[in-house]
Structures are given as structure tokens and as C-alpha cells.
């Protein structure tokens, strides 16, 4: 009898070798315990947790599973530089794990598991203008990228940040932005949906800042992170502006449990967001029916 063999069709699936490289002999389910060194509230519902050291080595763009002991874990991209001494996470309180995290105090123990996913391809960004677009708590992973770029700022032509929040009080890293704005080779523009009397900058959703794009759209990478609705409209605008699809880097949101491409929770189409992402290009996701959930 002739068996019907499945057709091997690998024209679209991401390169399997990209799924390799995590096996370092460590139990991938184990979280490394580490104390919280400092807690800095950024907005009414967003807080930065500074850990007492760097429990895992990571590159900008990779994420980790952060554990609240006995409660559970959730995936976050660190907001600190990969070159920093202390790992930081800037987190918005939204669910069960983050609520438990917000109840912790300085000195309490958390767990870190990772790093997972692929980093930003920084070597491809060399010599180029980098156009970063963020919204809300989406600034957290972008800060990690920004700090990694600053570490070798001479390698890049110019770094642009376009960031939006709901109100001036919802702007993450308001304490740090003035210093960043002074750096040569950095151009930061902010907007809020609703301003107040003290607000002197743009008012409107983040796409308002994307009306005039001062970079060479044909060659520059653009990196976007924010709530799904913002991702959707920002991506639309960036495509219209002429950015190459493979140069539009999007931080995808997905439910993640294991973090390393086995549990299947994060899968969007055939893509494992945890392993092939969490940063994916528009080229990667444009065929998925509804990539922004």
C-alpha cells in the first residue's frame, strides 16, 4: 500500500536554525531568584522594578519571564540596558501576576527566567537613522533598545524617538527624558492624547508625530512598541510613508507560558512569538489575518 506522505512545504516558515541556541544545560523552567533593589513609580499604574543585579545576560529586544514567587510568572522585556549592572523592568498593572508584583516591597524576592526570543538586529542598524515609535508602557522595551544604541551611539547616524501617552501624567520616564533630549544625535518628540495647562508639546495620538518623518524611509529601520491599537495605526502610517516592510520592527503581544516555543500559547499563525519574536517585522506578520490583538 502506498502511504500518503505529507507535503513538506517550508517556503514560508521561519528558518529552523532560528529556533536553536537556547540549550545551555540549564533547566529552562527554573527561575533564578533575585531581590528587588528599588521600586520607582513612573505613572499611576506603571512602575519600574530595579533588581539587585543582572540575573541573566540578554540583548535588547529579548524578554524574560518574571516570577512572583508562588503566584506565577509573566513575560516582560527588560527596560534597562543590556550593559547595565542592574536589570530593570517597567511594568503596567493589568492582571493577576502584575497586581501581585505591585504588592511586593524593596528587598522582596522575585524570579527571572530567560532570556527568550530574538534580539534587535543592531548590526543591521549601523550607520543608519533609527526611528523609534512608542506608546504608553511600550516605552519600556524601547528604553532598553535606546540605551543599547546609546552605548555605541557613534555607530548610528541619528536616533529619533516619537512617543505618545494618554496624558502628561501617563508619560513613562518623564524623570529621564529631559536628559535624553540633551544628547547629541538624539531627537525626541512627545505627544499626549489629552494635554493640560503645563503641556507645551504636541496633542494628539502618536500617529500625529508621524505626519512628518525626517528619516530616509527607504533605508532606515523603524521600531514600534505600544498597545495593539497604536501598533496597528502606526504600522499603517509607516507603510504609507514608505518604510521597507522588513525594516518595520513590531513588538508583538501574545500569551506566553513557557517562553521557548513548546507550550504553543503564543503562536500567531505559524510564528512562535516567543521564539521567532517577540519583535517581528511587518514582513513576518503581514499575512496573519489579525496580527494585532
Amino acid at each position: 500500500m502506498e502511504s500518503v506522505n505529507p507535503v513538506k512545504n517550508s517556503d514560508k516558515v521561519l528558518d529552523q536554525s532560528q529556533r536553536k541556541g537556547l540549550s545551555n544545560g540549564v533547566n529552562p523552567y527554573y527561575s533564578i531568584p533575585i531581590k528587588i533593589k528599588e521600586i520607582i513609580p513612573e505613572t499611576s499604574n506603571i512602575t519600574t522594578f530595579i533588581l539587585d543585579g543582572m540575573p541573566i545576560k540578554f540583548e535588547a529586544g529579548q524578554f524574560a519571564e518574571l516570577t512572583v514567587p508562588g503566584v506565577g510568572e509573566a513575560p516582560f522585556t527588560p527596560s534597562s540596558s543590556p550593559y547595565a549592572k542592574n536589570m530593570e523592568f517597567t511594568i503596567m498593572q493589568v492582571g493577576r501576576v502584575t497586581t501581585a508584583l505591585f504588592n511586593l516591597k524593596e528587598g522582596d524576592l522575585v524570579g527571572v527566567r530567560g532570556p527568550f526570543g530574538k534580539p534587535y538586529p543592531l548590526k543591521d542598524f549601523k550607520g543608519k537613522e533609527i526611528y523609534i515609535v512608542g506608546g504608553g508602557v511600550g516605552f519600556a522595551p524601547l528604553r532598553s533598545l535606546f540605551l543599547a544604541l546609546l552605548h555605541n551611539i557613534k555607530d548610528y547616524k541619528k536616533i529619533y524617538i516619537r512617543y505618545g501617552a494618554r496624558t502628561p501624567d501617563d508619560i513613562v520616564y518623564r524623570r529621564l527624558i529631559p536628559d535624553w533630549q540633551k544628547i547629541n544625535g538624539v531627537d525626541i518628540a512627545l505627544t499626549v492624547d489629552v494635554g493640560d495647562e503645563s503641556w507645551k508639546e504636541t496633542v494628539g495620538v502618536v500617529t500625529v508625530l508621524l505626519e512628518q518623518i525626517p528619516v530616509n524611509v527607504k533605508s532606515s529601520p523603524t521600531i514600534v512598541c505600544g498597545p495593539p491599537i497604536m501598533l496597528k495605526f502606526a504600522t499603517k502610517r509607516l507603510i504609507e510613508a514608505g518604510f521597507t516592510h522588513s525594516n518595520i520592527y513590531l513588538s508583538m503581544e501574545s500569551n506566553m507560558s513557557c517562553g521557548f516555543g513548546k507550550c504553543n500559547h503564543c503562536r500567531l499563525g505559524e510564528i512562535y512569538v516567543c521564539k521567532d519574536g517577540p519583535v517581528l517585522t511587518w514582513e513576518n506578520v503581514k499575512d496573519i489575518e489579525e496580527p494585532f490583538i
Partner: protein
Amino acid sequence: MKLYLLPSDNIIHFITKLAEDGPVFYPVFEDDKVHLNKFDKDKKFELNFEKIRTVETIKHFLFPSRDVVAKFPKDAQKKTERQYLVGVKNCDLRGIDVYDKVFLDWEPIDFGYKQRRENTIIISADCPEPEDCCFCNLVGLNPFCESISDINFTQVSSGLLFEAITKKGDEIINKMEDLFTGASKEVQQQRDKIRKHAINKLNKINKKSFKKDLPKRVEKADKQKMHNARKDCVECHACLHACPTCYCFLLSDYKRGKNFERVRTWDACYYAAYARVGGGANPRSKLDERFWNRFQCKFNYFNKYEGIYACSGCGRCYRGCSGKIDIREILWNL
């Protein structure tokens, strides 16, 4: 590979000897169904190798439904012991094929699975009488095994005709060589006849093959057609929990005094909250989307990843389905 005959009278001695080294699980007939139960030398031994696969999949033995995978703050891993699974059918080995790829080939390696896999000796059996639910032939399998297990055997009139598949299997046979005799030509011919009969029976049960471009057809499946196909689904999730190839899981943490344990439990992509994120958004909030996703996972994506379907053709999904949805009918109609 060389063939050996384990005469009928020696089968119990073979199983008893295996049991001295570790628990042996073999097919036991209870309430009209075959279960994979633990061999007990004080209980009556019965031969049920001619029946189709057991109700339970063998994934239970390598990937328990609830398993402690890490401890905090100090990790401690339990050591697993040698176990023998006897009489496993080839459809269940497709599950092992899928699991080996996911947990051993795809990095990082799952050490718990690796340890159990290395400590589990699989002695598979030919499936001589496929039933109406069986369709292993449609997913590229035969009703007998030629790889993955350590030893395969065919039940013949004078006993069990053994063939070692791995080195481990060869060693087991060599260790107990006193129990075996050489395999005569007649016995080998009997095996060929049994296998041919099983294949013919499968071809009768499943008159049509799946189309060669099934993955593409699944990818482009008509949404309305898929919606109609799932109309009888009551979301009991039996199909997924009974499936030997489904490997979705969820990690949860449980307090144990000052410490906690990380527990891995089976999950199923039909659960409404399966893909929901912390903020409440859900890319597959509708059953139609989850039903669609299951077909993509099994017949499109996994085929793209590894060139095989994540389906064994065992028919457990159909047998367990409250709405009697036949996966074959859906795939034939694409």
C-alpha cells in the same frame, strides 16, 4: 534486522523478567475497552495485542498530565526510573515522533522529557485488526512499526515474532535469548500476511486518501465550511486531551511553605482563555477561530516545521467526541 520468535508459553516469562527491572504496562481488556495497565505478576495475564491502540495514549508516561518541572528558590529534579511499555501501536508512536521533535530536537531540551524518554523502553506491536475509527494510513503511517520503538513484534499463531529496532531493543532480546527461538520462514510469511490484511482493512475503512496538497487546502480552508464542521462541538476538549500528538501545556506556580513549585499541566487550544493576554485581549476568542487553529496546527504548521502531520490517525478524537465529529470527513471535504 534479525527476527526472533518468543513462543506463546514464554510470553509471561518475558514480561515477568522485564518487570524485575521496572514497571511494565501492557494492554488489558476492561469494560469493552483496552487500557494500558501495570503488569502484576499475581494477577491473571491476558494477551490483548491484537486489539487496536489503548484508550490512554502513551504520552501519559513521558509527559504526565501534571508534572513538577522546577522548584524555587533551589531547583531539585526528581529522577525517573526505567519503565516498559509493551504492545504500543504505531499510531501512538507518531505521538512520540512529534514529542521527540518538540522536546528534544527544538532547543532548549526538556530534561524531564529526555530522562523519561531514555528510561522508557517501548515494545510496539503490529495492529492486525484496525477498526472503523482508524486512519493511520491517511497520515503516512503503517499499522505496524519500523522505527521509534525499541522492539516491534507481531502476534503470530505460535507466539510473538520479535524484531529489534534500536540497540537497546537488541540488548534486551540478547539478555533473554533463552526465551527466544529462531523465526522460521513460515512464521515470517504469517507476519507478511497479517500486515497485508491490516493494510487492506485500513484501505477498506478509508476509501479515499487525503489530497497530496492537504496542508495548502487546510491553510485556505473555507471559513463557512469549517464553521459548519464544528457545529456539533460542545467544547468538551476530549479530542485534544485524548490526542497522542497534542503537546500544549501551561505552567502554573504553587506555594509550598516558603518555597514554590512550578507545575506543568496539559492544556488544550480549544479553551477560550488559551491565548488570552494579561490585559484581556484574545486573538482566538471565538470557537470558530480555535477550531480553525487546531487544524492549522496539526495539518499545516507542524507539517511546515517538521514535514509530518501532528496527527496519528488513531481516531481517539472521533471516538471521544461528544458531537461525533469525524476529523477525516472534514479533511476529505477540503
